[in-house]
């Protein structure tokens, strides 16, 4: 449904590409997660694919048709919800959807029916005649998705759709996105790994403009599914320097370290377990949990993107 061929973007006279030769294909009626840390090139990719920005080189196809920045044909196939979801604040939700329906060439009757359906689907029927400027963040996001679906798009692009939402709003929006799979292809850029793990069929991980992984979510997890060891420290162990302590152990590599826990990637599981337990016993560090676990998408992400997080 979406195909990128050597898609590259270089801003101004910069030597470093914001997006370097991206090659991906997204299957029809799937939810595709586009992951990466801030500045990885996710928004740049989405902007190119939605015709908001021109690529420096490369091509992209939506539904088999090659597109570019000013292609009106492209716009009739897509729906888009941007990171900074701005709509006409003075309009009511109903008026906004009617306006979008008009842009897509729907008759007045069809617009009214479709707007009603979208409001119902987004759970905004009761707020149909309320001004958008009076909406909460979650309501705006749901209305943003509803307006993006008004033209029955083949592909729905969502750029960080849940980043500004509270946990309840996030859950609602994710369930909503998940339910769209039967209607269209969803291309969702995010840095929230849990979101991808919950709803995406396949995932691409981007780092500094480079594609570092691109697989079905389960395959990706299995591919990098080295067993990991997670150690959670007791609450009284506030002052330990995890990095210094565990760097000494040669049979493990620190994958992720936080204030009270560490995730370690063993080079040899049996040896690592013995080394770690001996080390903990000899130093007398108080622990709450010592667990051998499978890699989550977050672990895969950290491993691929690199760097440990010290908080």
């Amino acid at each position, binding site marked *: 449904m979406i195909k990128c061929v050597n898609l590259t973007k270089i801003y101004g006279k910069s030597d470093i590409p914001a997006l370097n030769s991206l090659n991906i294909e997204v299957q029809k009626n799937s939810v595709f997660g586009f992951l990466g840390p801030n500045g990885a090139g996710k928004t740049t990719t989405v*902007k190119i694919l*939605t*015709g*908001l*920005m*021109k690529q420096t080189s490369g091509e992209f196809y939506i539904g088999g048709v090659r597109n570019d*920045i*000013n292609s*009106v*044909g492209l*716009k*009739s196939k*897509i*729906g*888009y919800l*941007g990171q*900074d979801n*701005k*709509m*006409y604040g*003075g*309009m009511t939700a109903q008026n906004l959807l009617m*306006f*979008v329906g*008009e*842009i*897509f*060439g729907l008759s007045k009757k069809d617009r009214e029916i479709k707007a009603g359906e979208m409001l119902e689907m987004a759970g905004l029927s009761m707020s149909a005649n309320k001004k958008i400027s009076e909406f909460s963040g979650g309501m705006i996001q749901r209305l943003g998705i509803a307006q993006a679906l008004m*033209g029955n798009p083949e592909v729905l692009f969502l750029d960080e759709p849940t980043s500004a939402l509270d946990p309840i709003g996030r859950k609602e929006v994710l369930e909503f996105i998940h339910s769209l799979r039967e209607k269209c292809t969803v291309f969702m850029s995010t840095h929230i790994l849990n979101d991808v793990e919950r709803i995406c069929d396949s995932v691409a991980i981007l780092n500094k403009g480079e594609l570092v992984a691109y697989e079905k979510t389960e395959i990706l997890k299995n591919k990098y599914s080295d067993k990991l060891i997670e150690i959670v420290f007791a609450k009284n162990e506030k002052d330990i320097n995890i990095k210094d302590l565990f760097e000494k152990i040669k049979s493990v590599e620190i994958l992720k370290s936080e204030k009270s826990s560490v995730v370690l990637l063993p080079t040899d599981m049996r040896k690592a377990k013995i080394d770690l337990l001996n080390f903990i016993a000899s130093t007398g560090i108080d622990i709450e949990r010592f667990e051998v676990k499978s890699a989550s998408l977050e672990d895969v992400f950290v491993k691929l993107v690199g760097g440990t997080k010290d908080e």
Partner: protein
Amino acid sequence: MLLKNEIAEQFRSRKFIVVLVVFVVFAIMSPITALFMPDIISSVSESQNIKIEVPPPTWIDAVVQYVKNMTQIISFVLIIVYMGIIAREKENGILVFLLVKPVKRTAIIVSKYLSVLFVAIAGITVSFIVSGFYTFLFFEGFVIKDFLLQNLFILINIISTLFIVVLFSSIFKSQIVAGILSFVAYLLISLTSQVEKISEFLPSGLITQCNNMMKGTEISFMPILGTLVFMSICVVLSIISFSKWEA
């Protein structure tokens, strides 16, 4: 559809109402200022113990005041109100909402130009009626036909100022930059009125023609032609610039 939305947005944001009120206020003020100017001058001069003889005001004084107000103060107000017509939407991201929909970028730009055209026509129409009415009421010998033609010249002049604003607003992302450059361009064009050979083909020449009508000298329609070409250039440059703009 885009134009309908643009005009509706002018009402929703209350810009249209504000601008219309400003037009009406200055339209009324022009004949009233002309009417009371001798009284104002004599009261000031008496307080300074100076005697100034001021001839009784005529409709020409009212129209001179009207032309000044419309082409100077109103133009300045319009620059401030509309400098963000595109730039602000680039800044706050609302243009993205439209750009991902199946509409041509040219159509977006044209709808912006047509919306300011609507504002200018509405403003001048109301001003013509209001100012014409009071000038007719206060002064004898007022020639409505000439005033109508003068308003046509003023209208085209105001539209040209608005087109400059839309042009800069479409080129730049910052509404402040767009506003400053529009003002500079407006001043430079106004200054050309000192050189008749140049101003005859520019919006500044339209004002010269208004003044010529009051002096009873011959008027030229060349400034209308020149200004139409100038405005067309503004639209074309906007379309070219906006077609390359990346959100």
